């Protein structure tokens, strides 16, 4: 389209010069700093893409706003960086700006979250977890452990409309389908501890017979633990808890027996990103989709893993 021509012109000068000096200028636009997971993710990227490793990292925080992110990417294009990487706030709406980047000859790498675009050539690679898979893994474990006992489960959803929330819900639901585990309630806890706690309190007021909580992230699970304890019940025993993320606090609670199972969502994307960025600039073929290996932990595994966890 016409806009791409404009992009070329605008980007014009800076771009070729930068790659020659051996230092890779990488513009990274982060979603925000909304959770501990995100902080670990940011840290991983900032710690990996250092001057020693041959990178000049330009980092910007979009404060969870798509417009800020688009603005940052445009700015990277005009600044003439070598590679652009970002974790999109939303899946859709990137075509225009990615076309500008493409027209300017700047490769784009996605991390953590995908974009929903019909044109796959707009980005080089997507590094990140498979959220549906995470939900499935949690669901499968639950089905395996508790099928046949007539469990009643409640779900603490992530932010309404956000991709991880939608995908994890979907994955979990499909995995427990056909079992006698019944999902009796599902509310959003906005991925935060405080809301996880209040919503769980509400669940406990509303239902007498909750056996299991599936939380879309550790933080909400930790909030639920507080609520369960406040109601005089024992988390992990009276009510089983399954969460996703495996951040440090979550792992600790798992090791302490307050959570029963955690599916990991690995935030340490820095090394993969550095690797792919170098390859892309060297002209090598890279895979379109790089699924980060997500482990899962039960209580025993957590005790083992905890001392060596990086985040």
């Amino acid at each position, binding site marked *: 389209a016409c*806009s791409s021509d404009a992009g070329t012109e605008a980007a014009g000068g800076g771009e070729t010069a930068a790659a020659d000096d051996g230092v890779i200028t990488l513009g990274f636009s982060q979603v925000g700093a909304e959770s501990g997971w995100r902080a670990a993710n940011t840290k991983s990227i900032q710690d990996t893409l250092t001057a020693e490793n041959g990178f000049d990292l330009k980092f910007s925080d979009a404060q969870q706003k798509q417009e800020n992110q688009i603005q940052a990417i445009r700015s990277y294009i005009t600044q003439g960086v070598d590679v652009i990487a970002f974790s999109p706030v939303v899946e*859709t709406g990137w075509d225009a700006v990615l076309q500008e980047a493409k027209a300017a000859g700047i490769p784009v790498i996605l991390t953590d979250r995908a974009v929903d675009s019909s044109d796959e050539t707009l980005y080089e690679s997507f590094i990140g977890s498979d959220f549906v898979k995470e939900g499935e893994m949690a669901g499968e474990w639950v089905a395996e452990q508790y099928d046949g006992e007539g469990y009643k489960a409640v779900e603490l959803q992530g932010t309404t*409309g956000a991709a991880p929330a939608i995908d994890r819900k979907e994955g979990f639901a499909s995995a427990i389908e056909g079992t006698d585990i019944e999902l009796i309630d599902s509310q959003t806890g906005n991925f935060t501890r405080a809301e996880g706690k209040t919503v769980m309190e509400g669940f406990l007021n509303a239902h007498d017979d909750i056996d299991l909580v599936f939380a879309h992230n550790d933080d909400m699970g930790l909030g639920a633990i507080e609520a369960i304890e406040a109601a005089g019940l024992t988390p992990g025993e009276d009510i089983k808890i399954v969460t996703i993320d495996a951040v440090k606090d979550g792992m600790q609670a798992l090791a302490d027996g307050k959570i029963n199972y955690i599916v990991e969502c690995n935030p340490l994307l820095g090394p993969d990103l550095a690797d792919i960025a170098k390859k892309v600039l060297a002209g090598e073929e890279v895979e379109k989709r790089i699924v980060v290996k997500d482990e899962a932990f039960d209580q025993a595994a957590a005790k083992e893993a905890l001392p060596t966890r990086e985040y």
Partner: protein
Amino acid sequence: MTTSAPAPGAAPTKPVARTARARKLPVRLDRRYLPVLGTFVVLALMLIVGGTRYDNFLTPAVISNLFINNAHLIVLAVGMTFVILTGGIDLSVGSVLALSTVITAALLQAGLPVPVVLPLAVGAGTVIGLAHGVMIHYFQVQPFVATLAGMFLARGLCFLIAPESIAIDDPSFVALASWVQIFGEWRMTSSVLIALIVVGLGFLVLHFTRFGRTVYAIGGGEQSALLMGLPVARTKVLAYVVSGTCAGLGGLLFAMFSRSGYSLTGVAMELDAIAAVVIGGTLLTGGTGFVLGSVLGVLVLGLIQTIITFEGTLSSWWTKIVIGVLLLIFVALQRVLSLRRT
């Protein structure tokens, strides 16, 4: 001192007021323009400082992008200016913007043609604005609360219509969105054009129509406006309709900007719009301020964001702190400038 012609048959009257004498001195800048001027001066300062600090900063591409990235906010700010001038506030604009993007995306996905979709999306904003106006004027609900309810309502509708984000690939919409005029290194997209037209219209309406002047009068004192026999009810309702419509249109621009509809778009964008209007020199108590000031306010916010990106090494928290500090510097300087000259 010149005396006015006494009315025929009048007793030997003296000219009544001497107050105007000071006012009659030529070229004394109207005090009402001072805050806007202050904004302008500080904006210019920021540009200069940025230009000396970063490479590639003072380029047409960056300035063009400033407009391109903030076209939707400019439109929101114009609408918000109307409402704030009447002494009200509209907290719903962020959500209404989201609603409009979602409606646009959903309807286009359903295969409706662009000429049908666009008016519907903007119209949704108009209807919500009308509802606000009616609540505020006829039921005397405080603007803050009425529009807060509208904010929840619009957000709720977004979730109902589109729980997940929807990409827009309708060819005619994409064509419209990617229309661009290039003058050298300057770029003007369709959304910037629309935004500028809205600004122009906003200016004309405020300064060259009775409606516009009544908006100011209401801000100066609603009771007075009422006793002056001005159509307060109609004007107040209409101000919210304008704001709602602008939010709807802003949503359209945002849809063009992001080519998608997403229910969580524009969370807290109303604060940006309000901040822009206030930074642009409009008093929240109503009655004083200009559309052009609000545009400057948007540019200030956009420029702060640009500087953050150019800085390039700020962690998330420093970003927030720096935005706060820049805002503070800005407001304080503006305050000093406009105090000094009064």
